[in-house]
């Protein structure tokens, strides 16, 4: 069981690295879909073992919600937004991709050293699943600030959310049901609003480069 969680947490980390080193919008969406599927698998395995041992089914329900929401609905929504806008490949970054990838690697090292100082979380040995999933949160942040276009930033937000969810799962063996549901509703509202925003920005400025928003200043 532990081995599977190790493996899955590493694969989630791996998928966020693949995301960071990509340029195409369709590749972003597809990688996000795969990452969400991995997270659904983690929730499924954890929920199954809790359902068998303690007769509680809330994590299994959350697993189903993740599949419906993050694997099917949100990618579909993003593809639709993607169809409405002009550009296909992200061309300009604040840094070039190899440097971004190396900085993300530094973030993994950083999260290792920060987690190793939290006594109550680690106990005897470092909980490396938490290290990996915390790195996913930081990489999501960095992804968000390294992309200039709005869709990349939406994906960055979703990756942060994925990372927070997995961190919570691994450190507490499942949060209360109502908290998870609240987070999901927040997230879906945010993504829908951002999708509408992207389309509006695109119509107004004929580009979704957020640099152009500075023209709004008086």
């Amino acid at each position, binding site marked *: 069981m532990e*081995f*599977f969680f*190790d*493996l899955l947490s*590493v*694969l989630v*980390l*791996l998928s966020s*690295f*693949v995301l960071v*080193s990509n*340029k195409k919008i369709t590749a972003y969406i597809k990688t996000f879909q795969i990452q969400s599927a991995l997270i659904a698998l983690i929730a499924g395995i954890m929920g199954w073992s809790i359902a068998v041992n303690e007769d509680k089914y809330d994590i299994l329900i959350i697993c189903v919600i993740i599949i419906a929401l993050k694997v099917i609905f949100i990618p579909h929504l993003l593809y639709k937004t993607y169809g409405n806008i002009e550009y296909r490949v992200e061309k300009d970054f604040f840094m*070039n*991709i*190899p440097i971004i*990838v*190396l900085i*993300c*690697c530094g973030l*993994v*090292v950083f999260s*290792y050293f920060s987690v190793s100082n939290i006594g109550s979380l680690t106990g005897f*040995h*470092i909980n*490396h699943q938490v*290290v990996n999933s915390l790195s996913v949160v930081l990489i999501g942040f960095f992804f968000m600030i390294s992309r200039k276009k709005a869709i990349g930033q939406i994906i960055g937000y979703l990756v942060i959310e994925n990372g927070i969810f997995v961190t919570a799962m691994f450190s507490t063996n499942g949060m209360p049901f109502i908290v998870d549901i609240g987070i999901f509703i927040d997230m879906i509202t945010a993504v829908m609003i951002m999708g509408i925003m992207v389309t509006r920005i695109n119509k107004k400025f004929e580009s979704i480069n957020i640099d152009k928003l500075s023209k709004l200043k008086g």
Partner: protein
Amino acid sequence: MVNVEYLIVQIIVVIMAAPLVNGIIKKTKALSQKRKGAPVLQLYYDLFKLFKKSTVVSDTTSWIFKAAPYIVFTASLVASLLVPVTTMIDSVWYAGDLILMVYLFALGRFFMMLAGLDAASTFGGMGSSREAMISSLIEPSILVTLMTVGLTAKSTSSYQIMEFMKGVDAPLIRPVYLLTFIALLIITIAETARIPVDDPSTHLELTMVHEAMLLEYSGRSLALMELGASIKQLTFITLLANIFIPHDQFIFISGAGAVLISILIYLIKVIFVSILIAVAEVSTVKLRLFSIPNLAALAFILSFIGFMQHFVLGR
């Protein structure tokens, strides 16, 4: 001290099986595009024919042009001796390890680049400069990957690593080996001029890398170059197959029969990895030359995180 049986078995298996990998990859690609494709043994026929033909050498070339095919072929063959196809024969090969293998390939590649520049054709120069760029990008990833695996096994000799990996139960579900496996797969694709980095089926196009350096060669020299390249490809596939998917611990008999069974299973694994590479090749497009650093960075990071997972986090 070198075991003579080992040398004979190794050289025969490597030379006989190396062109097969190209055939399988080409056949898989053709089948995925609903074509019939060339026969699996096509490269054997090509090499056989090329060895019988005479060589045309340009007047303006120096001795490097004539010597390069022999150096490339010999370097590849000697490097492939460092990666045993079966661990059933004790290789007793203390003379070299995986680091020597990497730099023997680098030697062959260096002479290939010189030969590409030697004929002074524009394509050769372009191919050489691109090859220099790709090889310098991918070399740190190779060393970090092999060092990570070597550190877990506490040896850099490939025979010792394979012996150690026999004792590891289900290597591919452990984070460190899974990550280094993926990194080594990317490296294999980049080193053997496969599609995301270079397209092996193009001739006379502006994007070619490996083919551009061989453009001036003909006859026996071309055959040696091609065979050297396919031996290099087989060596990397052997690393992937024998380190990460060990099989010799399931053979309980000993003697010549065991070696035969072991080599048969090894060939099945080679076919499996070749199909994996062909699938990777079908499902991607060739990258722009300036996107290759991204791929190299990804391979480097994968092996580094594998290192972290094992040595820093303790799994």
